[in-house]
């Protein structure tokens, strides 16, 4: 049954992945199957050849939901054919500040992900699957462990999937708490038991990935889409969203909004609709100031720039930012942009793996300068240096983490320069933004991003 799709003036959710999300007991295989689960898996294994399946996925134009937005089907088609161990890794390391959609998808509907993975395994010819889940997601990992055991029991995993003689094994692997292990090649090293550092690309994982074998890596949400595409077809899938961003997206909305949480929307709805209609608009009295459209690594858009744009991969890119993992972090007028920049920089400095020079040293240097700036110990030259250092990081790193700090910090300085100048001339930001939302002042929370969490509904 295709979901109902309503288009009104007010933006509403379009639930595909979240269709039954609040059904009690959905994480159990019995409930999941009662609601129609695992039919797509059976269909994929008994009615479709791997080639059919791959063609369907490519035709759907499903784009990766983990950050880069690359076509899922195309990536799967890069894996060489032939008889060798091939791997599928689900990236469940979800650590980008502001992003908490995978958590809900795994906690509440683990079988949707497992079904999607077994389908993806057939399309890519993979026989060994891993879910690499961030270590802090204890509850979600436990839930997945149980669900995987159920799926083995039911014959959807194991040596003989659905009696077809195909073998698909799945292991849930818990990470040890490093953001960088969400980067796909660092994930592979970590999974192999090594220090989680990004690898040089090429070779790309599709050619030489886990243990040197061809490997497909996809995000939780990306893979959770597959049962639906198989059930209803690529054309149906493309009837949602925009031409270049088909389908729906689970958006994590956090920050200064009244109702932070996860909302599944059709791609292309206006940003304003997500923030105001779904997330309830500003949480306090202050007006909204800006937002990160795709996690903390995306350059901020001011309210004026971004509120009326459609929320799609292409529109965010055209505006000089990105949809990324699809997490909107909203800031109101009481937010100190200097503190915000420092908070972002601290996160990436803390998480930099240190392998490449510009990121390792650049994040460290940037934090030191921004700290002085926010304490009123900086000069105008420092601000110039901050800008120049971001430029020196951009595009020169081994992986994207370095740019993930440089891009938002550059955007904040470019768009709110007077606030930085003021911090220099007025001796810091103390007293400027300490009130209200806890973003300002000296007492910065060291690790936790001030996020709303949990789902809407």
């Amino acid at each position, binding site marked *: 049954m295709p979901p109902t799709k309503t288009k009104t003036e007010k933006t509403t959710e379009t639930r595909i992945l979240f269709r039954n999300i609040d059904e009690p007991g959905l994480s159990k295989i019995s409930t999941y199957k009662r609601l129609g689960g695992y039919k797509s898996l059976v269909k994929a294994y008994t009615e479709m050849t791997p080639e059919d399946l791959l063609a369907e996925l490519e035709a759907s134009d499903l784009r990766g939901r983990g950050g880069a937005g690359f076509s899922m089907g195309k990536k799967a088609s890069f894996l060489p054919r032939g008889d060798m161990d091939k791997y599928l890794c689900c990236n469940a390391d979800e650590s980008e500040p502001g992003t908490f959609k995978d958590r809900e998808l795994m906690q509440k509907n683990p079988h949707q992900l497992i079904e999607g993975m077994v389908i993806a395994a057939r399309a890519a010819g993979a026989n060994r699957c891993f879910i690499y889940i961030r270590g802090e997601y204890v509850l979600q990992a436990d839930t997945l462990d149980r669900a995987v055991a159920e799926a083995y029991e039911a014959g959807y995993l194991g040596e003989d999937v659905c009696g077809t003689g195909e073998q698909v094994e799945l292991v849930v692997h818990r990470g040890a708490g*490093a953001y*960088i292990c969400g980067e796909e090649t660092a994930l592979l090293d970590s999974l192999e038991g090594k*220090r989680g550092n990004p690898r*040089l690309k090429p070779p790309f994982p599709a050619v030489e990935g886990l243990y040197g074998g061809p490997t497909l890596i996809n995000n939780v949400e990306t893979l959770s889409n597959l049962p639906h595409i198989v059930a209803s077809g690529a054309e149906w899938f493309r009837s949602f969203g925009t031409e270049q961003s088909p389908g729906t997206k689970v958006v994590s909305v956090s920050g200064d909004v009244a109702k932070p949480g996860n909302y599944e929307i059709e791609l292309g709805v206006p940003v304003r609709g997500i923030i105001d209609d779904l997330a309830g608009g500003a949480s306090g009295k202050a007006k909204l100031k800006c937002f990160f459209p795709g996690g903390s690594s995306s350059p901020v858009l001011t309210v004026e720039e971004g509120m009326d744009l459609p929320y799609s991969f292409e529109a965010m890119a055209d505006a000089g930012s990105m949809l990324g993992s699809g997490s909107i972090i909203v800031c109101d007028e009481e937010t100190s942009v200097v503190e915000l920049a420092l908070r972002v920089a601290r996160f990436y*400095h*803390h*998480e*930099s*793996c*240190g*392998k*490449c*020079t*510009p990121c*390792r*040293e*650049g*994040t*460290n*240097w940037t934090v*030191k*300068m921004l700290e*002085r700036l926010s304490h009123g110990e900086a000069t105008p*030259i420092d601000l110039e*240096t901050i800008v*120049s250092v971001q430029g*020196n*990081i951009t*595009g*020169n*790193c*081994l992986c994207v983490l370095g740019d993930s700090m440089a891009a938002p910090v550059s955007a904040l300085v470019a768009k709110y320069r007077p606030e930085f100048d003021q911090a220099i001339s007025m001796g810091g930001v103390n007293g400027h933004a300490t009130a209200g939302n806890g973003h300002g002042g000296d007492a910065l929370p060291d690790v936790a991003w001030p996020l709303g969490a949990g789902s809407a509904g």
Partner: protein
Amino acid sequence: MVEPIRELVTITVDGREITAPEGQMLHDAAKSGDVEIPVFCYEPKLGEPVGACRMCLVEIEGIPKLQTSCSTPIRDGMVVHTKTDQVKEAQNAVVEFLLVNHPLDCPVCDKGGECPLQDISMGWGPGKSRFTDVKRHFQKPIELSPLIALDRERCILCYRCVRFSQEVAEDEQLQLLERGDRTFVGTFDDRPYDDPYHGNVIELCPVGALTTYTYRFRARPWDIEDAGSVCTLCSSQCNVKFSIRDEEVLRVLARDNEDVDDGWLCDKGRFGFQSFGSEDRITQPMLRGGDGELSPISWDDALSRVTKALKSSGEKTAVLAGGGTSNEEGWLLGRVLREGLAGNAIDSGAHPADAGAVRGLSNPALTARMRDIDHAGAVLVLGADPRNEMPICDLRIRKGVRRNGVRLAVATDSPTALDRRAHAVGRYLPGAAAGFISQLAGEIRSEGSSSGPDAEAVAALATELRGAEDVVVVWGEELWSEPRAISALMDLATVLGIEGTETSGLIEIPTEANGRGLREVGCLPGASAGLAEAPAGPGVSEFCEKLRDGSLETILLADSDPVRTHPDGEGWKQALGNAFVIAISSFETPSASLANLVIPAENFSEKEGTITHPEGRLQRVRRNVPPPDGLLPTWNFLAAVATELGVDCGFSDQPGLFTAMTSSNGLYQGITEEDLAGQGVRWQDREGAAGRVPAGGATPQMAAPTSAPGSAGAPDSIRLGTRRDLWAAEVAERSPALEFLVPMQSLEISIPDAERLGLKQGQAVEVSAGDGASVEAKVAIREAMIPGAAFLICGARDGNGNLLTGAVPGSRTIRIEVATPVGQTENT
């Protein structure tokens, strides 16, 4: 699996056309066209590039972002710019970033003046830093090992040392700990870095983060001169570069020779130079007086005494050459004995090689190059532990396995360092190599033909070797102690079709550094220079007997220490005690301490001459520092002896000697000193090589072993074998930096035997064999051991295992008694 040949393509770098093999890294291609791109982390010797430092960014047309030239393979038509504003900006940025946390303590840093970070900062950096905050601090320096100091503040986290540890030496001890700008180099739990190759990280480090205690604060680059030679401490014959200040060697560095050493040194070669200046070194001719003490005599006196002794024993003289004795010296020794004294008792090495078999094995089509190991289909390590006997060969094999998928088969009596990387491992009892090799050859010939206790291991080894395209067999000199093992080896070579392929072959690991060369210049019974037919004579193991029974009266030892390094040390002690002994030696070694006359020897920083690598490569050892005052070059002394004995030498200087030596040698004929420049030359690679080896029987004709191995002892008995240890060597004991590595004697024994005998790890025991001699040892229980055998280190300073072996290795069983520590009673 032959090394792939790549098509040549043309790229443009900074407007210059460069032709290079497709797929070569852009950095290297640019370099071949004289375009220098700065790098820190890139070092092809370490394997795949890591792209960490970002120093090598360049612009490639058609790609929007800058690319790391160290990791970008070239394609035809690529257009590259290395000097545009964008590239310069990136280079400035990376240098500035690297200096953010670098202390810039150049004035007190040993790397100063030869530091890539200094050079690249000057050449490609912005010239100033905008960083005004606090740099990171560590305690500095800390002791990474007793030989290496680590200054974490200077470290630029280039990954080189860590990659060496993980991907070259494969000891996996060096790690990067913590992350981001908190990252630092260290070992697990701060344990000392313990690896026989670890000195290489000093050279790899592009800054002064890793320095050695032996060189710290000794010199600046402008104080020293570089000079090349070849290390003669083992048969790896690594190419070295000495740093010399005021005519003293202060440091030994690698002088990359891909054909020989891949640019690595072991720590023995790197730090052993300390023995050159040892106070115990013998620098004058010495005569043993009635009181048993050595006292100096003049060179003239020495010459007349040596000549007199030789003349008086005449053909009852034996010559045993070893160590770093050069080809020239070996050749002169042969002439002294054969022409001057009409003798024929001359040998080299520790095990009795047969001239006929040596000729057979010298067939160029049967010899492998070191390089062949890199891309072999399979490598078989037979009767040797390369780590301890030819360390660089161990690294080479690891490289082939790790990077090129070489299949590795190991068949030895005792465990080897390569076991862990091997795809199949077989173990035989000491002295039982011949049977094992025959069985292996049989199994390869007709699958499934093996039976008996070894069948499974033999089948596994055969599987690795049977289908392999090219096989390189690395085998140990010890096999000569079992005559039948050599014929089995020949048979194996035939089964493997080695003669038919260019890139397969055998390489023998000799026990002496110039083992191959010495045989080829005539230090071999029955073969004179060029392996030419000569009157038959006794071999090394017979010397021992004959010196005892008086049928040989005098022995001239050239850099050879049989009491220490040869089987039956006890027998050798008696033999030397019973004979007139002339030792050419740098130290009063166990053998030299029984000598009547000691002639001081030069070392490889002082000597002029050539040596021959196990692959047949002639290499040049060069004088870089003058020997101690008045020390006569050994060749000079030998030539004088020859002249006294009426041998017409016909040369008056070193170049003349080289020409005379090569022109009288069918294998080396026509090689000039220029041919040897730098990389040396393999005689097999020269024209007409196949015809150069004299015919003379490819099948060994040798005496049967004195006691048949296999029949020794009762069923529960334990047969004694010996193994080599890299550090059980004179040079380690004489070099203060290495002394801590000198091993205590240990008895390696299998788990079942240890359990049966109630032995515990580390327990002190007394091991005895044969006629009552015994040595003390600590029990070392090892997994990959064959039950029924135990191994002692041959060459150990205290409790040398060779004292118990008897003449035929593997022929004796041992008795083990738990040593009772003083004041304690044993309660087993």
